[in-house]
């Protein structure tokens, strides 16, 4: 462990880190633009210059490894002068259009120019102008502002795995662009906006919408997929202006998917803001009293066996728990949270969790993906798989239709027959799985949401058990719905086999169901968007979207996380658990809680797994004892056909519609309206 002196302070750090990192550990701030701890080191902005004793000139601390006995000084006149000089050069061609720049107020260049720059410039020559580039519907470019740190290029190449960004030309003529100016085809592309230390890459949907100091920031959790990425919701008044990632090393590091970031404009459209009752085939507005009365009357007049309840993909644990309590008080047992019909057992937690955990992927050395496209089903799990691949010594194989996951994948076959061959040892991959030190298996909904899903599960589970090592559970289920794990934890599954055809169906935000199968049943829809469920509904109870309520979500690892209220629901819409509580009053069977705190207490009492917030309780590998029949179906089909539209919120989002046109259907026109940002 090398010892070095930083500003007179002795510090011992691990070998192999850089001087900049050592300075950070010593509590000394070093300005930087190109350096980013999750990207490779470029060393091209020169902002991190420090003085090293016995070195003839200032050193770039981001690229200098620590060595024994180094004496580093960061507060000398030499360092001050060097920083001023670098800053002066960076500003030679920077437009200084901060008043009209969306980065203003949260700009590294602005902040560092204030802290380390001069109070005036000495250059009077003309600044260069660079034509703006097209990078897709999400990333707005004003390339004149670019300082060529190449963070975006390194992000696209290393993290996103789409080698499409590059720096063309040299010196004064260097320009960042995508190859042939095509949209950046990645599910995590918008992270370059956060990485850009200046206003060259900014958010297109958010352009000229708000200033950072006008926004109220709420730390919450994402529900667009089952990953449960940490997000920050920025609101102005009632309106959600933008969603940004928050640091959570265990889940999303500091990235979020484009859907998590940009589906938020869907929160403003197609909202259900008052109760409705269907009269003569048409939905007419009603009061809460009328709507709840109508629901209560219908539920009371129906035999419990003919009542069904379905939980949607975005529901919070509290409302699921409340609904389960309500259904139990009615005696109804036809409950279901697996909207897609996935044949997932719910008896033991280890049966349906991503047991390896997302951070645990980094320990694995072999991965078999069965019927899943992690790139679309859980973009940040795929980012983590790619990170593991970039570390070296990691092989990925997959069963299912051809995949492009941004890292090499060996396609073993496309259906359960290949899985069966591996399970019985006749496939050469079985040997690899056996000899791997830390193997993992990822089982997707594409393999389970089919008639023979139970048989596929049994086969995959057998293989998953073979992935168990000492203290390592290699069996993983890749969920696609944010509510699924919580609902399975709460046991929101049918208590009896082959339930009767329901006469009354209660949908808690359930839109991804085949609604035709309910025939003429009376449908109650509780949710926040006028989507499929609401169209079919006979009574609509307007609920709150994920940014409008405090709620518990459990991600695919089984991590219990808190979503927080960032703005209030529109109009007469109410938080979901309150609606269920009010309905229980109308039914004359009040649920035993009046506040969210009381509800959560009951919830944790009944289900202790909800107690530890933010942590994963590991589940040891338990051999599967279920029976296995031979699967009968053909090739797997991936559950998501369009990454950008998977739930009521993203379907209502105009930005997601643009992304669909640009990336999925390929019908978006190139942006013809391009200038230099200073073109008038």
């Amino acid at each position, binding site marked *: 462990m090398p010892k070095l002196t930083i500003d007179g302070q002795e510090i011992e750090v691990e070998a192999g880190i850089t001087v900049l990192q050592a300075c950070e550990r010593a509590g000394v701030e070093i300005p930087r633009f190109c350096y980013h701890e999750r990207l490779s080191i470029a060393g091209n902005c020169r902002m991190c210059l420090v003085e090293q004793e016995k070195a003839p000139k200032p050193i770039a601390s981001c690229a200098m490894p620590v060595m024994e006995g180094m004496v580093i000084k960061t507060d000398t006149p030499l360092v001050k002068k060097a920083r001023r000089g670098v800053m002066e050069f960076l500003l030679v061609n920077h437009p200084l259009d901060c008043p009209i720049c969306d980065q203003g107020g949260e700009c590294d260049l602005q902040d560092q120019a204030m802290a380390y720059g001069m109070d005036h410039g000495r250059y009077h020559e003309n600044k260069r102008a660079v034509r703006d580039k097209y990078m897709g519907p999400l990333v707005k470019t004003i390339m004149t502002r670019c300082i060529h740190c190449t963070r975006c290029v390194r992000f696209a190449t290393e993290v996103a795995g789409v080698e499409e960004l590059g720096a063309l*030309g040299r010196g004064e003529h260097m320009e960042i662009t995508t*190859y042939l100016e095509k949209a950046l085809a990645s599910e995590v592309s918008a992270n370059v906006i956060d990485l850009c230390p200046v206003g060259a890459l900014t958010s297109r949907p958010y352009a000229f919408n708000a200033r950072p100091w006008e926004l109220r920031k709420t730390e919450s959790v994402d529900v667009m997929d089952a990953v449960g990425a940490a997000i920050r919701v920025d609101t102005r008044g009632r309106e959600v202006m933008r969603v940004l990632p928050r640091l959570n090393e265990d889940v999303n590091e500091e990235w979020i998917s484009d859907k998590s970031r940009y589906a938020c404009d869907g929160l403003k459209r197609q909202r259900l803001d008052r109760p409705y009752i269907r009269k003569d085939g048409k939905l007419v507005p009603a009061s809460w009293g009328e709507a709840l009365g109508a629901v209560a009357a219908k539920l009371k007049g129906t035999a419990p066996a003919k009542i069904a309840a379905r939980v949607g993909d975005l529901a919070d644990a509290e409302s699921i728990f409340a609904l389960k309590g309500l259904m139990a008080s009615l005696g109804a047992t036809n409950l279901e949270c697996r909207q897609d019909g996935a044949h997932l057992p719910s008896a033991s937690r280890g049966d349906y969790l991503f047991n390896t955990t997302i951070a645990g992927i980094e320990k694995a050395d072999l991965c078999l993906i069965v019927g899943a496209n992690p790139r679309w089903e859980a973009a940040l799990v795929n980012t983590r798989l790619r990170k593991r691949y970039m570390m070296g010594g990691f092989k990925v194989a997959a069963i299912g239709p051809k995949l492009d996951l941004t890292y090499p994948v060996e396609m073993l076959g496309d259906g359960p027959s290949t899985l069966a061959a591996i399970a019985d040892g006749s496939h050469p991959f079985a040997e690899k799985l056996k000899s791997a030190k830390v193997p993992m298996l990822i089982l997707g909904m594409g393999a389970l949401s089919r008639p023979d899903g139970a048989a596929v599960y049994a086969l995959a589970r057998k293989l998953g058990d073979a992935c168990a090592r000492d203290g390592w559970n290699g069996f993983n289920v890749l969920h696609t719905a944010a509510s699924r794990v919580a609902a399975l934890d709460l046991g929101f599954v049918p208590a009896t086999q082959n339930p009767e055809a329901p006469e009354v169906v209660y949908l808690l935000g359930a839109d991804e169901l085949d609604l035709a199968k309910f025939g003429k049943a009376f449908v109650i829809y509780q949710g926040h968007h006028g989507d499929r469920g609401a169209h079919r509904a006979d009574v609509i109870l307007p609920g709150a979207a994920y940014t409008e309520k405090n709620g518990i979500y459990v991600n695919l690892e089984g991590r219990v996380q808190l979503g927080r209220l960032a703005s209030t629901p529109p109009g007469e819409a109410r938080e979901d658990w309150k609606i269920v509580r009010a309905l229980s009053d109308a039914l004359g069977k009040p649920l035993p809680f009046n506040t969210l705190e009381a509800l959560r207490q009951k919830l944790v009492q009944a289900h202790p797994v909800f107690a530890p917030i933010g942590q994963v309780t590991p589940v040891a590998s338990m051999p599967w004892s279920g029976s296995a029949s031979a699967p009968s179906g053909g090739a797997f089909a991936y559950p998501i056909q369009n990454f950008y539209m998977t739930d009521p919120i993203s379907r209502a989002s105009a930005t997601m519609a643009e992304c669909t046109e640009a990336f999925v259907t390929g019908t978006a026109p190139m942006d013809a309206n391009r200038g230099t940002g200073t073109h008038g």
Partner: protein
Amino acid sequence: MSAPRKTFAFTPENLAEAKKIIAKYPAGRQASAVMPLLAIAQKQNDNLLTQAELEYVADMLGMAPIRVHEVASFYTMYNLKPAGKVQVQVCTTTPCWLRGSDQVVEACEKALGIHCGEVTADGKIGLIEVECLGACVNAPMLQIGDDYYEDLDAESARKLMEALKAGGVLKPGPQNGRKTSEPLGGATTLTSFPAEKA
């Protein structure tokens, strides 16, 4: 880069040459061969690299096209815009300039009917100014293709251009009768061997 999409492939001889170059680098490091391969491609494609050539080389070396484009755009000797099938490069750096490269440039421009940085209407000949080509001892000079034409003046430059336009045979080297870099009119020192002197 705006050229219409077409396909490109090395001729058998160039392919063999490319393979020889790629083989110089260890397995997995083929990308190191990108610069010589681009040079071969440019030569084969009439002194021009378009999207087709860049993507062909990228594909051959297992690189992303943007990485190859980065290399090609960084170095000035890769032509991403038509530079003429034959490129006339006139040196105008100080030694050549002192020896009258201005007149050479003017003569070339006049004879070809184009300015520096332009290409003749038939696309055959391009003319550019370049920095020092390292033949200052024979200044002023210019380069056509792979050959140097040295010790020029306005008249010899004009003749050279006329011959080039007519497709005639050009004789590389000094154009004023000088032998390589010997003094004009022959050697003046070391004309005999020391042993003969005694």
